[in-house]
């Protein structure tokens, strides 16, 4: 099945369409914010503090010191998307490498890899990120690596199970009889067959990464505190929740919609690529 055909199948479902549309809008917004935002998200302007939505061109209003909330959300989307995509890539590399070693390595290597995965899964991702942030300082890179490794070991578990199942199939045996080496079998047979499962897993990792990133920036462990992030906005506005409840609503809504979009996209991808589910329709 070609990528284009999968995309068409996904877009035909309401859940998949929602995921694609929201994430598309978010990406456009994040890219546009590199060149232009309605207002300077960092500019303090006491003259236009505490504005309600839709006053003086501030679509979502302003906060205590006149920060335009919509501009801050747009810039915050950059960090959210970068963390989601990059940590999913790290998770894919970590998960595939560990999974391949665990499934294909010699017996004792495989056993130790499985044991290591079981132990690493016990390290909660948020905790790992906090500790790494303490060690190397808070930065986007630390957050990405921590989330990527944290969820990568979970991906490794799935990858190992899938690879083990495919490894035993007749066509892999036939390829081996035909003289194919391990590298060729991995490239031609194993990877294409586990790809659908892996892609679904990665879309779920992206959803979780968005949640963890929001929690981290809320706790103050994200990138530089001065650059706007959705979790950081929640943290800042919490003190004024009684006076301006709406300011707490926007960033939370943005996080929730993005997580929902990644999750629904994952569901739609699974339905589109799993032949068992396609046939029952």
């Amino acid at each position: 099945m070609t990528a284009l055909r999968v995309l068409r199948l996904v877009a035909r479902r309401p859940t998949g369409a929602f995921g694609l549309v929201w994430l598309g809008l978010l990406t456009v917004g994040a890219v546009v914010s590199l060149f232009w935002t309605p207002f300077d998200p960092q500019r303090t302007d006491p003259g236009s503090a505490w504005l309600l939505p839709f006053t003086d061109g501030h679509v979502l209003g302003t906060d205590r010191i006149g920060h335009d909330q919509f501009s801050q959300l747009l810039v915050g989307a950059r960090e959210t998307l970068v963390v989601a995509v990059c940590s999913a890539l790290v998770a894919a590399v970590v998960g595939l490498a560990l999974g391949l070693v665990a499934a294909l390595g010699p017996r004792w290597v495989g056993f130790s890899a499985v044991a290591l995965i079981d132990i690493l899964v016990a390290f909660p991702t948020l905790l790992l990120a906090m500790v790494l942030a303490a060690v190397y300082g808070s930065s986007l890179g630390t957050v990405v690596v921590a989330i990527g490794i944290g969820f990568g070991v979970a991906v490794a578990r799935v990858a190992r199970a899938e690879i083990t199942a495919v490894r035993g199939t007749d066509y892999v045996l036939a390829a081996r009889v035909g003289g194919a080496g391990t590298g060729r079998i991995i490239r031609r047979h194993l990877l294409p067959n586990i790809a659908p499962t892996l892609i679904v897993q990665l879309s779920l990792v992206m959803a979780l990464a968005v949640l963890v990133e929001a929690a981290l920036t809320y706790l103050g462990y994200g990138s530089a505190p001065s650059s706007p992030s959705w979790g950081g906005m929640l943290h800042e506005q919490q003190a004024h929740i009684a006076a301006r409840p709406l300011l707490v609503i926007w960033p939370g809504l943005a996080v929730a919609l993005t997580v929902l979009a990644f999750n629904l996209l994952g569901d739609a991808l699974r339905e589109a690529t799993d032949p068992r589910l396609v046939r029952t329709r």
Partner: protein
Amino acid sequence: MTFWLLRRVALFAVSLLVASVLVFALLRLLPGDVAATIAGTDATPQRLAAIRAELGLDRSLPAQYGSWLAGVLRGDFGTSQLNGASVSAELGRKLSVTAPLVLGGALLAVLVALPFGVLAAVRNRTFVGTGISAVSQVGIAVPTLWLGLVLVLVFSVQLGALPAQGFPVDGWADPGSAVRSLVLPWVALGLTEGAVLLRFVRSAVLGVLHSDFLRTARAKGLTRGQALRAHGFRNAALPVVSVLGVQLATLIVGAVVVERVFTLPGVGSMLVVDVGNRDLVKVQGEVFLVVAAVLVISLLVDVAHRLIDPRLREVR
């Protein structure tokens, strides 16, 4: 069963040991050490060396690890490098907030997930079933910390019914006010985690509903409810127990965030402060405690699997 249990416990002990090495090593990557923080910027090298000797930082890494592990095995997590207070004593105090928070959140999650998950499966592809599924999808996407803030907005700011944050200074001396300050954190944790659990309950029950053995039971004349009670739930329980184990682990982490939202004096708040202070010994103890708790939970999950599923007991 005994042999299996012995082997499983041995594996648990080894995992715990490896985890302790990992936690220890992870925190030794820290550039610079706490001695510089204590001594201040204008410290002489002699003063730094004296502080390092006092804290035991001048010893080799294996020696430091050995004495830390020996202490942990005796329940002694060392002393804070900043103020010399006992870490175990503080952990004990903070756990009196965090443990009820996590357990209450888990209980609420189960109370939400089981009935509604079963209902969503039994009423699959009807208005009720689809409705519950949609609500749970939203529940999964909502960040716990945001749900906490929205709850504060509604129940503290608007209705003034429950405290927005804080915990009684004298702890559980007045159980009524302690419980009142935990209600919103419980709901925030329980609903978001319950939504995740609900989806697994639903898909487990759905799987059982389409199974051959349930069709056989129906063919023998049992109603769907009777068949589910007699044969279905026990089978559906297996994946649910696994997920519940994972969930307890995420609940512990969720508690870190929720404690910050509601400024509860628990292990999570303690951890955030100590990471900020780079108080190595304390962070080490806290992280190890959390990882150990997760490993204990996964041990309990495996034992529960054995008890629920007789097939696992027969084939070794």
